[in-house]
């Protein structure tokens, strides 16, 4: 097996996922293409060396349909020989793209890939791709799949995270993201999205609300209470987890991931390609994994994936310096921290999707990039990025870097 290195990573800032959002006028393939061009230009890269571009995208229809991976590669002006593909493992897609790339590199079959994702949630609405998960009675009834928001509230209830706990977590995410921006933590990785003439359109994540407090969040009504109570979704959760009396509804727009537009790309390759191109590796992927988990509660996926990864690597929690756990809903990182007894100071150190947003197909790559940056900045060795995934799954990646003396 060969080593797989991260050479570079970029992301667009995340625009608000509605028509007033700064990136709403920009087609999704253009967002992705801008990240691809940035990777090329920053590294002075001959794109003929790139074997494949793997992009995650959750709603691959209409503008994002028909393999937005290859479409973005063409749009970016890459060499003909750079292939492209779109994948979908729901929220994990951006990280799964990294995993698929890493596997091909490690096996020695391909040398240099871009793995990332793109999602324009303002231009192609979440859910518009249809699907059978909740709709086909033979899936939904037989496997008790329910809308994720209710599952997230179920997770909070199981873990004993009340409204205060999840809101406090959201405040932390917001303040960390804001502080990270102010301190320039994202300067290296975030590219400015430009218009057709090259003028800047968006340079900074616009979803962040720095003034967020417990008081400001307390005004928000739980988003999934009516759905849960009126349509029987709560009953489904309680039927599966009968030691709880009922689901307590605690999540709302302020403590769940934001709906945003964005794209990201990570440049991955063999050691040899680094020598050939003169690029210096920033981190090495030392492990990656994915696992299914209980599909009704959905969000125990990260727990399952982390356990699987630690078991396989023989490492334990104390061997990991930093964690990125996607903030799909505040209860998710809270649950992971509780189950593995993590130091909150080591988890999502620069804020997360609650503050900055979750452009679904791209987020996995964004988390990994943030993790690499934070390890470098703090001169730490090892980190794990993990995402919870719809229908009960978890995907994780472990990276290591050489610490400087």
């Amino acid at each position: 097996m060969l080593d797989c290195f991260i050479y570079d990573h970029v992301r667009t800032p995340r625009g608000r996922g509605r028509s007033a959002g700064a990136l709403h006028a920009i087609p999704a393939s253009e967002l992705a293409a801008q990240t691809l061009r940035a990777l090329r230009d920053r590294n002075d890269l001959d794109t003929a060396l790139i074997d494949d571009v793997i992009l995650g995208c959750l709603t691959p229809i209409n503008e994002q349909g028909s393999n937005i991976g290859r479409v973005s590669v063409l749009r970016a002006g890459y060499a003909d020989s750079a292939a492209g593909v779109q994948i979908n493992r729901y929220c994990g897609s951006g990280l799964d793209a990294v995993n698929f790339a890493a596997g091909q590199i490690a096996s020695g079959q391909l040398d240099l890939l871009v793995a990332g994702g793109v999602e324009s949630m303002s231009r192609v609405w979440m859910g518009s791709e249809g699907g059978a998960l909740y709709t086909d009675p033979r899936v939904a009834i037989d496997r008790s799949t329910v809308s994720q928001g209710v599952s997230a509230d179920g997770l909070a209830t199981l873990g004993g995270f009340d409204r205060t706990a999840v809101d406090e977590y959201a405040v932390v995410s917001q303040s960390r993201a804001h502080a990270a921006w102010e301190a320039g933590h994202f300067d290296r990785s975030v590219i400015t999205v430009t218009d057709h003439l090259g003028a800047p359109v968006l340079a900074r994540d616009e979803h962040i609300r720095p003034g967020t407090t417990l008081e400001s969040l307390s005004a928000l009504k739980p988003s999934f209470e009516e759905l849960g109570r009126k349509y029987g979704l709560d009953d489904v959760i309680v039927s599966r987890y009968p030691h709880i009396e009922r689901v307590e509804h605690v999540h709302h727009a302020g403590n769940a991931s934001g709906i945003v537009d964005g794209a990201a790309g990570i440049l991955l390759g063999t050691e040899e390609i680094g020598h050939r191109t003169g690029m210096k590796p920033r981190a090495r992927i030392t492990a990656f994994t994915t696992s299914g988990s209980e599909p009704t509660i959905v969000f125990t996926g990260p727990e399952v994936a982390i356990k699987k990864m630690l078991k396989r690597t023989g490492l334990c929690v104390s061997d990991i310096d930093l964690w990125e756990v996607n903030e799909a809903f505040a209860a998710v990182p809270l649950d992971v921290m509780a189950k593995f007894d993590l130091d909150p100071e080591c988890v999502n150190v620069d804020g997360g999707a609650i503050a900055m947003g979750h452009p679904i197909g791209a987020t996995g790559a964004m988390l990994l990039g943030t993790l690499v940056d934070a390890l470098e900045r703090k001169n730490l060795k090892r980190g794990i990025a993990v995402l919870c995934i719809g229908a009960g799954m978890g995907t994780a990646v472990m990276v290591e870097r050489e610490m400087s003396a």
Partner: protein
Amino acid sequence: MTNAFSINKSADGIATITWDDPDQSTNLLTADAVDAFHVAVSSLMADDGVTGILIESGKSLFSAGHDVDRLIDAYNVFSDSNAEGAERYEPLLDQCRPLQSALRTLETGGKPVAVAIEGSALGGGFEVCLAAHRRYVGDNSETKLGFPDVTLGLVPGGGGTQRAIRLAGIKAALPLLLEGRSVNVTKAAEIGLVDEVVSPGEAASAARAWLKTEPSATQAWDEKKFKLPGGDAHAPGVSMLFDLTNPSLCAGRSKTSPGKAGVVAAVYEGSMATMDQGLASEAQYFAKTLADPSARNFMRTGVTFKDELRKLARRPSGAPDWQPRKVGVVGVGMMGAGIAYTCARSGLDVVMIDQDQAQAEKGIAYAEKAMARAKIDDATQAEILGRLHPTTDLAALDGADLAIEAVFESVELKRDILKKMEDALSGDYCLASNTTSLLISELAEALDAPERFLGMHFFSPVDRMELLEIISGEGTDDNCLAHAMDAAKAIGKTPITVRDSRGFYTSRVVTSYEFEGLRMLTEGVAPALIENGGKLGGMPFGPLNLLDLTALDLNLLIRREAKAALGSAFQEHPGDAVLEAMVETHDRMGRKTSAGFYDYHPDRTKTLWRGLSENWAVASEQPPIQDVIDRLLYAQSIETLHCMAEGVVTDPREADVGAVLGWSYPLTWGGPVSFIDTVGAAAFLQRANDLASTYGNHLAPPDVIADRLRSKGRVYV
């Protein structure tokens, strides 16, 4: 071959099929009827002289009913069969494919078909109507149209799912199919299930006029460019309906009709397919559903057994016919008022007697409220009120055939009142007490003619709960029992006959459920797990919730009275200490005081009292949920078996129907006795003994019954 269908050809080329089954009061689609229909239709399609077909009924209803006996037989054949794979389902498919096939012949045979609907068309009868090319219905407020199949645990098997969605669209049709309720003619026309509403009696001529216009003989859905109105299952606005419906069907067999999941699946899949493919889908789900014993239970307990009991299968033979005309109710509390109203509603004259005139007159107010709620018209209301006579004078009982005592639950008071009532009665009367917890024989001691006295245990609210538990005392004679059953029939109740014992049948078994919950509480089982265990087994309320609803102080009182009466024979139960503590230490009486095992909040929600875990420690290790579910179900079945071993209940049908009607025991199991057959007798005995060895001997089946079960293999043959 049945002559349910007669054909009349007129000179204008229109052939009329008149459905008027001489062997039944309502046109029912038996297997014979389906065959005869298909033969009739085929012959008309082949007849060159026929240009159009009109279908009508010769009865006041178009058609209603399911041949449940035939469906249950088919289930039995399936269940006993040794065939493997898909072939096993043939006997079940035979219950729907013939009708599907006949109706396809009707709509694709090449001749236009119109149906004239006068009177209700439900189930298969309505499915026949939907296969016509045009439907006319007479405007009658009594006419009901719809698909009651899910109420029988079934999926419509005559193309109802496929034609309803193609006519009305999924959004309008799916709720109708899922709820099993019917609509009136206006609503049916609004959503497209019928084409035109005409004056009553005019449907046939309207249909005939349409047939004369040489209309198309092709259904819209057999045309090439057909699109489902409103779109298929994944159309915008439609998929959401599935997303919001599916969760309510998730909890599986215990919660809801087994037919519902099949209906949604047949609609979902068929909506994106041709009619023939959709029908195949519907047939498969029909068969899968009927293959589940749950459907058999819905039909057998819910229809067959209930009908048998309502028709007084258990009436002592030889007792002469008897019809009550005048009823006396003594004690006009809520129960007395309900009983009085129920009798008056059925045409009986009622004297409502209370020691206080104002209280007696509350019976009038009760009736008025009930009639308003039931939207009864003014004329009928006046009639009913005219039959209610409030008074304080016991002498008003003179001439009453049936006299029911419904005073406060006190032995002394009841004995006193009953004696006074007996003194005022004469002739061939039946005297009854509505007591819930006192022994009939004990009350009978006060009477000169105990043979004319028994218990008539009504359920609240009396006007809506159809069960009547009739308790024979030691001295009650057959004539009296027959009277009570005749009275039940006269007022529309379903009677079960029970021998006198503490708690009779219904209270005794429901208490076993509640007290198993209390026992678990004392063992450290988490309250939420107990409650969910009850509900996951199909009970509408957890045991602690049910105790709150039936009042903790009342339950405690009943236990104390039993203890006083039985002395050393009284069997203590760990639940007794719980009730004592709740009532006397914590002052919590249940729902009526907004504080019991639950706290009842102003916004109508409730949460388990936090104090439960402080007073009954929750064990760190919890039992598997399946053990909790099973204990709560098995407790009921075992107690029922004890009732049968003691002769308190002598007919398992009455145990099953009494449970379903008395305390909403889940129809999916068919009743505490049907539960045994559903699980399988051998599996039941094994599980009961396993539970007994882990959790206590009270869960062991009585030996005499266990032996019989082992040799017979099942309860019902």
